[in-house]
């Protein structure tokens, strides 16, 4: 088991910068997920840890050793691949024991450890099958067994569940968590699926455009995103955003005004242009808002489309009177739309005029130019403290 430390990792392919100056540290036994959209550099970052890619600049440490120039085989890492990458010409036993057979273990020891690993991933009795004869989930379990059999310091998992069907993915997610607990291993996990990131990790590292946006526990990323990208990326459906201007005593967006006292919010002053962010579940119908400690003034809206999901209903609200819902506009960023989630027993229908309020303690303000978070929660009193301490990564 070991810590992993990345120091100013940069990777360029010609003119393209895939990874831009990433520094982070993964603690011993920690489960850290790299998450981000496609092409954000998360896989490349992982490959520099594995040694499959040489960083253009920066150093990689595993434990206390600088492994930047070491070959992958000498780093004490094991990897599970997105495309599973079992050796098709070997049976399951040979696949799992591949790494052991390259080292000097006696046959008895190899067999014992292979059987133990197969036991952990529940592959008993399948050791003489060929990979082509197995289902996707079984294949991926072989891939995981191949990784754990060598008892490595660090596990690297590059979207291991991406090629599995949805049901199996949920099942394997819990298996991986159980595995993490049993092995007490350091795991770095790459995914673009934020549900995997939220459910499994101790900490999430959000990457975009090759840059590290935030590294923090999942709920911190959710509740106190460090910038607008993290706020929009974490959480499904995405956070609502509305651009506005801070005036004396309030924040004016194109369709509604929120009271706030700019003097009591650090980083916000009158005449600033800011982006207001509010998650769908923090938008409430006024008639259900009694329980809210700090609601905003009611906002007039009209319901456009309802999406019943079973456990909740997503309601697309149109804010401006004469605006029609539009296919071209992303509801999360369109200034005239607001996405609200309500419980399924709420009496609401499409085309209805409603009043909604926002939960002031859950309103996020971002700098409109840089996207950096300014404040999380604008209740005004304890707001600054809770908002001033997002886990800064940059």
């Amino acid at each position, binding site marked *: 088991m070991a810590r992993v430390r990345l120091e100013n990792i940069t990777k360029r392919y010609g003119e393209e910068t895939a990874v831009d100056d990433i520094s982070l540290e993964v603690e011993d036994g920690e489960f850290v997920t790299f998450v981000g959209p496609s092409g954000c550099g998360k896989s490349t970052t992982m*490959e520099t840890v*594995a*040694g*499959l890619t040489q960083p253009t600049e920066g150093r990689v440490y595993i434990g206390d050793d600088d492994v930047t120039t070491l*070959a*992958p*085989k000498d780093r004490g*890492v*094991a*990897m599970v*691949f*997105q*495309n*599973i*990458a*079992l*050796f*098709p*010409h070997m049976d399951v036993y040979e696949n799992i024991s*591949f*790494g052991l057979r*390259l*080292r000097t273990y006696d046959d008895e020891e190899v067999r014992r450890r292979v059987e133990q690993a197969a036991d952990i991933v529940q592959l008993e009795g399948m050791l003489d099958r060929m990979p082509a004869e197995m289902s996707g989930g079984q294949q991926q379990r072989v891939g995981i067994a*191949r990784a754990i059999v*060598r008892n490595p310091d660090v596990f*690297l998992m590059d979207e291991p569940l991406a090629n599995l069907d949805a049901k199996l993915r949920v099942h394997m997610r819990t298996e991986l968590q159980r595995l993490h607990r049993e092995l007490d291993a350091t795991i770095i996990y790459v995914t673009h699926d934020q549900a995997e990131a939220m459910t499994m990790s101790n900490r999430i590292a959000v990457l975009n455009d090759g840059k590290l946006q935030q590294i923090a526990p999942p709920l911190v990323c959710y509740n106190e995103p460090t910038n607008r990208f993290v706020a929009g990326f974490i959480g499904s459906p995405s956070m609502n955003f509305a651009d506005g201007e801070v005036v004396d005593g309030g924040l004016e967006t194109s369709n509604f005004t929120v009271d706030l006292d700019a003097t009591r919010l650090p980083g916000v002053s009158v005449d600033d242009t800011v982006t207001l962010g509010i998650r769908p579940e923090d938008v409430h119908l006024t008639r259900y808002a009694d329980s809210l400690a700090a609601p905003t003034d009611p906002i007039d809206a009209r319901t456009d489309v309802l999406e019943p999901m079973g456990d909740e209903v997503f309601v697309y609200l149109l804010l401006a009177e004469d605006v029609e819902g539009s296919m071209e506009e992303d509801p999360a960023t369109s200034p005239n739309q607001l996405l609200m989630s309500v419980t399924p027993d709420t009496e609401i229908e499409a085309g209805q005029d409603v009043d909604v309020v926002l939960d002031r303690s859950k309103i996020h303000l971002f700098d409109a130019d840089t996207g950096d978070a300014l404040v999380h929660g604008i209740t005004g009193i304890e707001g600054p403290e809770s908002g001033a301490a997002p886990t800064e990564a940059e």
Partner: protein
Amino acid sequence: MTDPTDDTDPTTATESSDTGGIGDGERDPPRDPTLHRPDGGTVLEDDRDADLDRGPLQQWVSDSISHPERVYRAMFYVAAIFFLVTTLFPFYWLLMVALTPEGQLQDIVFTPNGFNPGAFVEVFEVIPFHIYMFNSFVIALASTIVVLVIASLAGYAFGRLEFPGRTPLMLLVLVISFFPPAAFFIPLNDLFNTSFAFLRPITGDGTLYNTPFALVTPLSAIFMPLAIFILTTFYSQIPDGLEDAARVEGTTRLGALFRVIIPLSAPGVATAGVLTFIAVYNEFFFSFLMTDGQPENWAPILDGILAYQGQYQVLYNLMAAASILGVIPVAILVVIAQEKIVSGLTAGALKE
């Protein structure tokens, strides 16, 4: 008044000339040409009438036009028989010559003039033909191994690595493969006849002439480009993930090549290997010139066959028997490997 008259006059003139044109209808060709044209409608009738007068060839041609697949089938048989005859008849003739006793060779007409299977034993008694065969086998095998090892490394580099100058280098390999081998002969022969001190412990006189190296070296080089191309294609199709997995599991890049990439490219490796083996085994030019033709000096089969040609007599029946014996190993090899070769030459693009 004059003006309107002038205007109307041409109009009337044109009208009258138009009507004149139509009015001359009886002398004009009819408006529907198919009705009255002498060729048009009558051809079909002639055709049907002529059926009775046709000879067999005309009949066959007419049938073929209406059923072209008969022609294709006929062409297939013609082509197949042509190739079978041109490839198999020489072997048949060789067998006839081999079976005919010495001295009666001039009267062979499709069957042996006598029956003398002892020729196949005699070939080993007159000269040590088995040693020539052994030499050829060793040379072909050694060349194949050298080619496969080096072409595997080259194929890995060309197929799986990005490096500046990859395409120009690949083209250079291609260009070299087009050089006529004769262009290499004089410098190589000179080189192989030069004595090097460091070679003395190995070859005695310090030259490579009369050693298998004199054949293996140039022949490997000549047949290398084809193997490089075949292996490059195959190795480039192995998914990157498998190599990455092997490297993370504990192999070097070379280890991944030999433990994962080559086993998964078995059809390609078999193809390159068999093609090289056959090419070297059959090669004439260097084989003939790089040794002095003595069996103890690594002379290949070619020299063995020619050794039945003495100053005063030529043992054609033994040459024929030796030729047949020389073909057997390659024939066996091809039969064993043909499945792999076919899949290697054709199915390369289909691999996952």
